[in-house]
């Protein structure tokens, strides 16, 4: 039973919020390639969300476009989620490997990505008074993704309901700590860089004399 191709597994997992990931785990299925592609789509979705909305729903300042925030909102935050969850759940008797966490989490992002592209399309057809439709699609998409993400974590680690909630809360805390350390590290690197460049400038001045 359930001899599905990798693409069919994506569909199965997304459309069966309760048992989809359990089935996938039972069949040891899921592809890292597809999950990376989904994260790339998430990156595109975040850009579309920030830049391509209909003009009647907000103006964007094109002069200040920078790719970094979108990269952080998609790739960095996803990586932090995967690493954080792995770090937390290995301590909490989770059964998931890093690879599986990555695959399952990525699959559960699909409704959110779809929602973003659909609302961006809708925003070019609707006017401000009809924003409820966009909001409805948004709520459905985000809600679906949250449920899927919960079910993904639950089945990848074989947790109970309560333990999953606990693990997710700890994961978010771990993500915050990681991002904090990242910022700290970056400012440190910057200071070291300033230090080196100052010494270099100083040396060039001395050498000239």
């Amino acid at each position, binding site marked *: 039973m359930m001899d599905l191709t990798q693409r069919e597994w994506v569909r199965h997992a997304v459309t069966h919020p309760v048992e989809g990931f359990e089935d996938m785990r039972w069949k040891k299925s899921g592809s890292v390639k597809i999950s990376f592609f989904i994260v790339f789509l998430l990156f595109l979705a975040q850009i579309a969300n920030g830049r391509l909305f*209909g*003009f*009647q*729903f*907000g*103006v964007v*300042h094109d*002069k200040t476009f920078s790719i970094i925030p979108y990269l952080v909102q998609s790739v960095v935050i996803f990586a932090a989620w995967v690493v954080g969850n792995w770090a937390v759940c290995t301590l909490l008797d989770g059964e998931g490997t890093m690879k599986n966490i990555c695959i399952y989490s990525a699959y559960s992002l699909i409704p959110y990505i779809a929602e973003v592209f659909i609302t961006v399309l809708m925003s070019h*057809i609707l*006017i*401000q008074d009809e924003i409820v439709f966009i909001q409805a699609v948004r709520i459905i998409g985000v809600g679906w993704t949250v449920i899927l993400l919960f079910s993904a974590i639950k089945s990848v680690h074989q947790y109970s309901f309560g333990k999953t909630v606990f693990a997710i809360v700890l994961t978010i805390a771990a993500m915050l700590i990681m991002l904090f350390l990242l910022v700290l590290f970056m400012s440190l690197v910057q200071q070291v860089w300033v230090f080196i460049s100052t010494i270099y400038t100083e040396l060039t001045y001395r050498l000239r004399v």
Partner: protein
Amino acid sequence: MNVKKISKLLPLVLSGVLMCGTASAPLTASAGEPYDVYNYDRWGEAIPSQAGYTAERSVSGIDLGIGHMKSPSDIFCDADHNFYITDSDNNRIIVVDSEFTRVIKTYYGFRMPNGTETKLSKPMGIYVSPVNGYMYVADNKNSRVLIADKDGNFVSEITKPDSEIYGSSRTFLPQRVLADKAGNVYVVLNNITTGAAMFSPEGEFTGFYGANRVEPTAEIVRNYIFNLFASEEKKAHKARNVPSGITSFDIDGDFIFTCSESGTQTTDTVKKLNAAGNNIFANLQLEFGDRVPMYDSAQNKLMRTAIVDIDIAEDGNINCLDYTTGRVFQYDEDCNLLFITGTKAKQLGGFEAATAVESCGDSLYVLDSSKNTVTIFKETSFGEIVHTANKLYNEGRYEEALEPWYEVLKRDGNYRRANKGVALALLRKGDYKGAMKYAKLAEAPNIYNKAFEGYRREFLKAHFSQIAAASAAVIALLLILSRKRNKKRASAAASAAKRLEEDDQELKKKEEG
């Protein structure tokens, strides 16, 4: 051969040099001003623009034949277009004709009813009522507001009120004065932060009017929380949170506009007060003056906007004078920035210590208390078009404003008000596509929304049959596809079942065999 080559190349090189020269020339949109003319875009970034006013000449006391002015502080244009200047340190008021060529009268004092004369002492502000023609003088050093007629006869005076609300320990040093239609007198006082003192037509003190709010900075919030727990004794020893006072004001019909020169405060720098003293601009999140204060490297300080005087023109435009940068910021009645004029400089069109601004007809008059001159700015042709268009626009005659707005755009394609005006006019006309284009240029999503609604309605009306046909075709296609898939699945299931059955039979056969 070589020479020939060079002579061939020479014009090319030369033209290149010339082009470089023109490209690196400073970005001055108009010639003549001793400063770069700019405006702000939607994002609060300064962009080069056309000048709306140009300095025509400056007039000193010597030019008028009455000797040097000394720290003049206020200028007022009355209903007959005569100008009243308070020449503070010379203790006099000068009346000049509308062309600024001739002194009509000079007041050093006024005749009392009993025949004696009462002298002025450092008059700081003047207002001439269009209703009764009286002059209201803020006679600063004499601590009084003097009311007199134009013939120089004393009418009445307002001195420090003997009232508990006013407080006996406070001084009474009038700085600016004005009167409304009913004859109520409003006085801005030195060192008083509770608003303008208000007096009835009979000269009775009726209370304070239009106090500024305290800006909720972090320190204020912290003090507030601290005070919730502090004892009365502790509270008494703490510094009190005092708002900045009103610096100057002007009246326009039923509304009084006030300004505050505090450089550190961002709330209530300009207010529009109704008769009840409520600020109509309070919750509109408006910004006046320079968005980002300029940094002066020579003095090592930020040039924070300090609006020292405000003037409402006859057409409802608001002129705000910034002391720090010597700029006059002109806004229309909805507080859209129109023009920025003036600078801090020695040349004509620049100021050292600009203290008062007044508008009359199509000109601006700025008083400089350090140069002791009045600088007269004339409207440029660009300014004239903008003002006409803006007037039509504010009256709701969008379509008539269309032509002038197009003309404005021809001269300055970045002028945001013009794009907005064109968008609204086209929207009114029913040219939705054009309105969408200009709304996008003006970065006005709400106008775009309306235009898009109209455009969508027209599009649906025009293409209804195609859309209906296309959607019907799509639905039919989907139906056919799903039916085919169902059939496929059914046959696949059937064949699978068959295979299973065959396997079973084979197994049975094997077992039997």
